[in-house]
């Protein structure tokens, strides 16, 4: 018995000892699941090429990442957070409150959301308004707000196919859905509807119908691709990288007459495109080894340019002027204002 107790106490002591002297020699990254695939590729290359350990990357979502990132300075807090949108003022305040006062913003590239369906289905073209009308919970008909009455695409516009509306949507927690809401639902919302919605126009426009024509799919984009393949009438939206990786199974429909393409997303001529970011805690540079080198690797031409390895897996590279700004920020460690 005594032996057992002493082993147990020894074990607790070991835990206490090892963790009290805990320091980190490995970069920790949290944040957006949209940036995750790109960050992991850079991290892996970085780990293989140099003297540093491979950074650990956790996919927590943009909001969750910001919360962790802004929680404080020290080995227990992450060094970098990925974001599929710019940092919000609220998050800046949180950061400042917890002593994270110097943040470097790096624009990684652009991401386009493709509205896609199975390869076997006929090509399609939609306007944002049509997409909004197909998805919104409430739409305006003859100047009045009504519950979405459209059952077939042809109900919205006679030029659209005479087929049942069936759209797989990403869950509200995903960054893709956020981007879709702000780029499609709010922009596609008609003026009449907006004025009828009044103060809550943004929220009301983004509300998605719940009468079975829009089906909520899981966070898992691979699953959406599978479902689209098996049902040629269904549409779904997901990041451009999934379209590139699965172009034998799914194809994108044009939005406002534009097919999603590298160039189109880069210059935002494809209408559903957004920039991606990551944020670096300046206070950790020099404390956690390798952060500066990681920034260099991430912003190198080898990674970020048109022919870089990130482009190959679907990241849409920055236009050259923006690239210069990002590269300078990464090399000179320029911080952004958090006031």
């Amino acid at each position, binding site marked *: 018995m005594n032996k*057992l107790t002493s082993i*147990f106490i020894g*074990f607790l002591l070991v*835990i206490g000892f*090892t*963790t009290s002297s*805990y320091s*980190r020699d*490995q970069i*920790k990254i*949290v944040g957006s*699941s949209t940036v*995750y*695939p790109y*960050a*992991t*590729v850079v*991290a*892996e290359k970085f*780990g*293989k090429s140099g003297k540093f*350990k*491979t950074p*650990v*990357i*956790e*996919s*927590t979502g943009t909001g969750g990442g910001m919360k962790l990132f802004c929680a404080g300075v020290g*080995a*227990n807090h992450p060094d970098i957070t990925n974001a599929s949108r710019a940092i919000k003022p609220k998050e800046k305040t949180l950061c400042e409150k917890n002593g994270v006062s110097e943040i470097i913003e790096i624009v990684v590239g652009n991401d386009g959301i493709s509205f896609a369906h199975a*390869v076997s289905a006929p090509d399609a073209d939609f306007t944002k308004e049509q997409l909004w009308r197909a998805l919104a919970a409430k739409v305006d008909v003859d100047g009045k707000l009504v519950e979405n009455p459209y059952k077939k695409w042809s109900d919205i516009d006679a030029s659209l196919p005479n087929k049942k509306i069936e759209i797989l949507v990403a869950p509200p927690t995903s960054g893709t859905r956020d981007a879709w809401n702000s780029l499609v639902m709010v922009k596609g919302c008609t003026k009449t509807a907006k004025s009828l919605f009044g103060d809550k126009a943004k929220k009301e426009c983004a509300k998605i119908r719940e009468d079975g024509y829009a089906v909520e799919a899981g*966070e*898992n*984009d*691979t699953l959406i691709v599978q479902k689209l393949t098996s049902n040629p009438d269904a549409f779904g939206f997901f990041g451009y*990288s*999934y379209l*590139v*990786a*699965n*172009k*034998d199974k799914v*194809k994108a429909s044009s939005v406002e007459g534009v097919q999603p393409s590298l160039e189109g997303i880069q210059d935002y001529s494809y209408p559903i495109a957004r920039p991606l970011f990551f944020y670096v805690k300046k206070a950790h540079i020099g404390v956690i080894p390798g952060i500066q080198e990681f920034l260099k690797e991430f912003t190198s031409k080898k990674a970020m340019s048109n022919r870089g390895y990130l482009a190959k*897996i*679907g990241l849409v590279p920055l236009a050259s002027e923006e690239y210069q700004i990002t590269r300078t920020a990464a090399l000179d460690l320029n911080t952004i204002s958090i006031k």
Partner: protein
Amino acid sequence: MTKEQRLKKRHNAEKRFRFYGLASIFFALLFVLILVHNIFSKGSSAFMKTAINVEVFYDKDLLELELGASEEEILEADFFDITIESLLKVYPAKNMDEEDALIELFTTDAEIEIKKAFLNNKNLIGKKINLEITASDDIDQLHKGNYPRDLPEDRRRISNFQLEIYDVLVENKTITKNFNNYFFKNGDSRDPEIAGIGGALVGSFYSILICLLLAFPVAVLASIYLEEFAPKNKITDFIEININNLAAVPSIVYGLLALQILLATIQLPRSTPLVAGITLALMTLPRIIIPCRASLKAVPPSIREGALAVGASKFQSVFHHVVPLALPGTLSGTIIGLAQALGETAPLILIGMVAFVVDIPSTPIDPSSSLPVQVYLWSESAERGFVEKTSATIMMLLSFLIVMNFLAVYLRQKFEKRWN
């Protein structure tokens, strides 16, 4: 109703019941079969990897190495040039684009493979050797028949030129399928062809070990005390009810608890098997205590009385007679509890185990992933190669669970002693 009719009715009722029972077993088996078939048909190919036979010439001048170079010198040396040279010899490429397409047939780790082969045999300098270089994910999937080649070129990730090379390689039999040791040895990777569950295995092992070390002694001592020594009163009743409730608490709640206490308050490092182990131990404790107490309860009181009657103390009667008899049940309860912990994902998500970890953890306080988390991570990846990897990881996880459950049954049967 006559007696015969009533008898017939009773027999019919029994027949119906048997039929329902059989039917439900049949359905259950059918679903298990569909599940297993689905996983196996997708996952079994992940245990093989496609490799292309390449003649590598360790050119002295390109490597800038002399015979008898030290290990450090070799590690520092640049193998990029000889890698490109060797890969390009596989097929005549006419221009830069074609050369790029050719190099894309191989894994991004080709250089590292060529370096490793050299490290294993340092006398290769200035010599030629045939190496099996791992093929890229796309070629791997194509060779395994998972990738359609009859689509128009712009819908394929593999170009016509690459298909042409592939066909020649198949004809020359220089493309082969080998056992995929990377799958067991390597950590996670963004390239499916070199991604493995090595890191996840080690992470799971550490987590379960810590879980066992914490949960087993605490659970066993707690259940012995509660069952044998504690007075039966309102307090112990209250504790008992709470243990039963805790066993039914969804595992994610333990994740939240760990997030608050272990990570936020005690400041243990995130994403580590240490935290995972403690969290899983908390979750597993009530799940071990319950079978432990049940097996203690199952020991007949006559054994305790027999021991007491010859003058054994309470402690002696419990530890000499009751505990050894309850041990098989206790052990199998523990193993089943651990098996549940092994397959647990939800609490691990909250403590940051859902992370991309390439380096294989060497201690329980290194960041790490675990088997079920690896399944979750890969199932979200866009690359097609991860589909088979996901299923193969599920196969590994399932086989561990089956082994553990068999062990539990075996222990119970082997050491179970009969008593009157």
